[in-house]
C-alpha cells in the first residue's frame, strides 16, 4: 500500500487530586490509597521534607552548608515515589531528591553532611538500595538500567526507579539508557520531575516536543504525563509502573509536571530569568496546600493537628541538625581509602606524604 498509517500513539494526562483539592474517586485503583492513615502519612512526609528543606536553606544562609538544591514544590512526587517503592527496589536519584532519600531511609544528618561538602554524607546505609547523588545530569540513568538488567539476569523480583529533571532528557545518556531498557524489556521506571526549568533554561528551550512523556515512543514503551503536584496521581502511576516492571512487562516513562519553587540552588538567582508572576502562580499549586485542603474537607484536619505535626517535625529536624553539627571533622585521608580495594605502592606513598602534610599543618 503506497500511503498508509503504520502506527498511532496517544499521550495521556493523569491526575487524581485536582488543583482545588478535589479527588476523582472513579480513577482510584483501590480505596486503600485514600484511607485516613495513608493520606496522613503522605502529608506528614511532605511536611517533614519541606521542613528539612527549609532548614537546609537556613543552614546554607548561615554558612553551614555549601551549595544546596531545594526540593520545594516537588514534594508530592518524592513522597509518592517513596510510598510506591518497596524496600528491596533500587533507586537511582539525581541531586534534587533529598525528600525521597530521607523517606527511603537515609538519615537527614547524612544529607546535611553531603550538602555541607562532607563525603560521608554520601554513604547510603546498608539495606537502603539507593545510589548516592550523582551531579553530572542524566548520566546516572544507564546505571539504573544496568542494575535493572542485573536484577532481571538474577531473576530478583525487584524493580528499579530512576529520577531526573527535564533538562536531563536532552542528554545522550538519557537516550541510550531508555533505548537499552526498551530493547531488553527491563524492570525499570523512568521518572522525570519536569519542573519546567533547567537552571535558567525553560522547557521550551529544552525540547520542541509538547510533552516529555512522548519521548517514550522513541523507545517502544509507554509514556504518560502526570500532575506532579498530585501525590495520589503520581503514586498510582509509579506504583502501577513498578508493579508492571516486576511482572516482567518492561519499562515505563512517567513525566511528572511540576514546578521548582526555589532558585535552582543556593548559588542561583532565579529572578534574573523568570517572572515573579509565574512563580506565584505555581505557589498556589503547592502540593502541600493541595493535600491539606483535601484533608480539611475530608477529615476536618485542624489548625491544632497541623501545628502539632509541625512541632513534631521541627523537633526531628532539630535533632538531625544537632547530630550533623556535632559530627567530627572528616579525615581527608578517606579519599585514599575508598579509591581502590587496595592501594598500589605509589598510591601508598602518596597517602603517606599526604598524612605527613596534614600532620605538619596541625602543628602550628
Amino acid at each position: 500500500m503506497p500511503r498508509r498509517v503504520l502506527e498511532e500513539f496517544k499521550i495521556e494526562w493523569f491526575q487524581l487530586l485536582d488543583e482545588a483539592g478535589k479527588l476523582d474517586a472513579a480513577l482510584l485503583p483501590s480505596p486503600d490509597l485514600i484511607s485516613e492513615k495513608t493520606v496522613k502519612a503522605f502529608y506528614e512526609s511532605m511536611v517533614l521534607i519541606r521542613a528539612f528543606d527549609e532548614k537546609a536553606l537556613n543552614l546554607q544562609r548561615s554558612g553551614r552548608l555549601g551549595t544546596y538544591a531545594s526540593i520545594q514544590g516537588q514534594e508530592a512526587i518524592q513522597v509518592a515515589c517513596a510510598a510506591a517503592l518497596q524496600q528491596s527496589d533500587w533507586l537511582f536519584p539525581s541531586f534534587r531528591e533529598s525528600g525521597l532519600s530521607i523517606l527511603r531511609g537515609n538519615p537527614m544528618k547524612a544529607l546535611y553532611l553531603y550538602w555541607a561538602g562532607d563525603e560521608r554524607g554520601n554513604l547510603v546505609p546498608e539495606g537502603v538500595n539507593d545510589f548516592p547523588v550523582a551531579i553530572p545530569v542524566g548520566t546516572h540513568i544507564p546505571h539504573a538500567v544496568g542494575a535493572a538488567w542485573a536484577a532481571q539476569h538474577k531473576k530478583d523480583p525487584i524493580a528499579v526507579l530512576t529520577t531526573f529533571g527535564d533538562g536531563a532528557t536532552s542528554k545522550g545518556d538519557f537516550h541510550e539508557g531508555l533505548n537499552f531498557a526498551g530493547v531488553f524489556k527491563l524492570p525499570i521506571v523512568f521518572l522525570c520531575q519536569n519542573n519546567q526549568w533547567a537552571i535558567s533554561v525553560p522547557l521550551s528551550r529544552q525540547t520542541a516536543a509538547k510533552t516529555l512523556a512522548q519521548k517514550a515512543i522513541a523507545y517502544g514503551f509507554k509514556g504518560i504525563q502526570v500532575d506532579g503536584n498530585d501525590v495520589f496521581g503520581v503514586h498510582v502511576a509509579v506504583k502501577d509502573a513498578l508493579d508492571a516492571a516486576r511482572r516482567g512487562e518492561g519499562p515505563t516513562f512517567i513525566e511528572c509536571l511540576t514546578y521548582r519553587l526555589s532558585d535552582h540552588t543556593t548559588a542561583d538567582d532565579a529572578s534574573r530569568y523568570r517572572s515573579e508572576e509565574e512563580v506565584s502562580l505555581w505557589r498556589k499549586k503547592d502540593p502541600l496546600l493541595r493535600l491539606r485542603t483535601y484533608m480539611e474537607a475530608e477529615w476536618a484536619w485542624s489548625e491544632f493537628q497541623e501545628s502539632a505535626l509541625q512541632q513534631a517535625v521541627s523537633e526531628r529536624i532539630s535533632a538531625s541538625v544537632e547530630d550533623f553539627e556535632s559530627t567530627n571533622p572528616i579525615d581527608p585521608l578517606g579519599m585514599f581509602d575508598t579509591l581502590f580495594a587496595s592501594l598500589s605502592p605509589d598510591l601508598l606513598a602518596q597517602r603517606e606524604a599526604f598524612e605527613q602534610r596534614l600532620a605538619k599543618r596541625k602543628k602550628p
Partner: protein
Amino acid sequence: MSKLTLIQAVNQALHHEMEKDANVVLLGEDIGRDGGVFRATDGLVERFGPSRVVDTPLSESAIVGTAIGMAAYGLRPVAEIQFMGFLYGAMEQLISHAARLRTRSRGRYTCPLVVRTPYGGGIHAPELHSESTEAFFIHTPGIKVVAPSTPAEAKGLLLSAIRDPDPVLFLEPSRIYRAIKEEVPEDEVLIPLGEARLVAEGEDVTLIAWGAMLHPTLEAAARMLEKGVHTDVIDLRTLSPLDSATILRSVEKTGRAVIVHEAARSCGLGAEIAAEICEKALLSLKAPVLRVTGYDTSVPLPKSENDYFPDCDQIVEAIEQVVQF
C-alpha cells in the same frame, strides 16, 4: 584601562570580539538571560540578541558537536561548557572531530572553535566542579589548550583564541575569577598563543605553573626570595603547544625546576615538562625536577579540598629540596 576581575576580562573580550566580528556566536547552558553561572556572558544577550548568544538544551556533546558544524560553515562559535567536569560528555566530539576536521578533510574544512570552561578547584562546589584534566587535551593532537592566570592575560589570550584558525580549549581558573583585580587594557592587546611568560627572574630555580596555581607559586617565590633564593617563574599560559624553548632556556640557566599543577600527578602536564627537561637539559640539572601536584585520587568534596590542592608550603618545600639537593 580599568581594573577588572578575570571574569570581567573574559566578558570584555567576548564583548569586544562580538562587536568586531558578526560571525562570533556564543552557545552554552544558561549563558543568555542568566549571563552564565559565573556571569561570564553577563549583558551579552541584551546587547547582541538571542541568535548570537544562545541558551542551549542540556547536551554537552551537541554543544561542541554543533559548534564544529558552525565553525566549518564559517561562523566563529565560542561554546561554554558550564564546568570542566561536564566536558567529558563531549570528549568524542573534541577528540574525534574538532581536533581532526582539518586533517580529515585534507584542509578543506577548518574548525575555528573555542570551548571555554571554568576549571580547577577551590570554589567549594559539588563533585566534578573542580576538574583540571588539561592533560587529556594536551595529549590530543589537533587542539590547542590555553589557561590564563590573570585578568589581563585572560583577555589577551581569549582574543587570540577566538581569532585562531584552529580549535582552542580555553580553561578559565574559576578559583580566581574574582580573586584578583588588575588593569586590563580597554583596547585589543592580543597575546599570541604558544608563548609562555616569564613573570619573575632569578638564577637559582625555575618554577613553572599556570592558571590558578601561578599565585601560590608566586607566593612561594616571594617567600624564597626572603631566604635569598631567586627564581624564574614561568606562567605557561598556552599548555599546548608547549613553549619548551622558554622552559629549557630557563632551566639551562638555573639547573633546577619545580612544576606545580592541581591536576592528578600521573600523566599530568608536569610529567611532560619534566620529561622534556630531562631529555634536553639533563647536563644542566643540579637537582631532580620536582612536581607539586594533586594526588592520584578524585578531588574530594569541599570539606577536604583545601587539603588536596597544592599550596604555598608544599611549593616552598619542593624549592628547598631542589636547592639543598
